[in-house]
């Protein structure tokens, strides 16, 4: 048996329920890259995590041949540039720019706004839900005539937007507020079905039951009433 070469040593410090961690696993799996997953307790950060990401102290951190890379969008581009099979970013400069734009939009606009629902009730909560829906409308429009945000096949923005499909939409089940009702967002619902038809996505997203339990527990901890 040949000695396992260390030239492709890939580790991922992540957390099973984190959308930012899972998106890295999706990318690595799509590219057929083997990696060692090191589950982190983000409430009690390991010295390894603090050593590898001293600036932000957050997961995910990809370690490739001993060198750490942090920030999920940065990691995704690194993965795409290092392992060239099954590209996740398009080739065309403008399409790449749009992929970067929409990914930032998901993380900095949709995610940040949706999170504001935490701890809010009544009219304040309604306002946040409205604001989140306004932002989601942009994704809805992007999906018209497309199977995926990346076009015919799964791409960078789809991987990033799993945050919407499997975190935002799973949370609304728990919290009992339909942020993304199918009547208002038929394209997004169709897209989620397309995602679930992809083996890599199915394999890499957190298992639904466990995930819902986890979200419920977190909401309870944050004193949010469950449905």
């Amino acid at each position: 048996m040949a000695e396992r070469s260390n030239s492709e040593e890939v580790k991922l410090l992540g957390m099973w329920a984190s959308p930012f961690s899972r998106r890295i696993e999706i990318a690595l799996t799509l590219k057929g890259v083997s990696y060692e997953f090191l589950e982190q307790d983000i409430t009690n950060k390991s010295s390894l995590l603090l050593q590898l990401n001293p600036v932000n102290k957050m997961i995910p951190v990809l370690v490739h041949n001993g060198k750490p890379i942090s920030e999920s969008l940065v990691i995704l581009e690194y993965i795409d540039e290092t392992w060239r099979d099954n590209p996740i970013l398009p080739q065309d400069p403008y399409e790449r720019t749009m992929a970067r734009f929409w990914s930032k939009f998901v993380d900095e606009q949709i995610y940040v706004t949706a999170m504001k629902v935490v701890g809010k009730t009544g009219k304040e909560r309604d306002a946040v839900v409205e604001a989140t829906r306004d932002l989601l409308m942009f994704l809805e429009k992007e999906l018209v005539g497309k199977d995926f945000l990346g076009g015919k096949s799964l791409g960078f923005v789809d991987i990033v937007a799993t945050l919407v499909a499997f975190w935002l939409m799973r949370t609304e089940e728990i919290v009992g507020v339909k942020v993304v009702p199918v009547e208002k967002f038929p394209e997004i619902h169709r897209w989620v079905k397309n995602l679930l038809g992809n083996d890599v996505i199915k394999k890499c997203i957190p298992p639904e039951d466990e995930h819902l339990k986890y979200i419920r527990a977190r909401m309870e901890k944050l004193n949010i009433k469950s449905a």
Partner: protein
Amino acid sequence: MAQNDTVKLIGSWSSPYSLRARVALHLKSVKYEYLDEPDVLKEKSELLLKSNPIHKKVPVLLHGDLSICESLNVVQYVDEAWPSEPSILPSQPYDRASSRFWAQYIDDKCFAAVDAVVGAKDDEGKMAAAGKLMECLAILEETFQKSSKGLGFFGGETIGYLDIACSALLGPISVIEAFSGVKFLQQETTPGLIQWAERFRAHEAVKPYMPTVEEVVAFAKQKFNV
């Protein structure tokens, strides 16, 4: 998109983000029409609102009938759409990741620290915010030392992505320094960055576009009615 389609840049002379786009276009010797929005926070042109309907901000690069917004996106686009030398991003994936990480750090953490100093309501708040900004700059100083490897820029011998990203901090910091009387970039704590800033301002791809400290301070005084 053909390289010789019309190129226009909607920017603002006072915007540090706009500066990033101008430097990138200059480095690549791209011929473009510059459309200035003189007081972009107060008044936005029809063209700007049409080209960047979601964020309504400068800079916006118009290449043929495509529009690209968000300054770091514009810089990366310019690097990729005009792939000739000089390269703006480094060539190795790890170095590229490093540049992107630090550029994001600047836009997320450093600018948040700048905003906190500007928005601080009382002395206690000001002290805390100033402390955070000093921390950020100390971290950037360390990054500069590591990245430049004794040469003049974050990119080494020549201006690169991280130099362009970091340059956006210079205007806002000089405004804060003028208003507060506190030096955030100083010889004792950030010697590398001080010298880098001088070198950067003097660079031929920067000098024509970067307002002087006096100009940004005067503009800020007018804006805040001081």
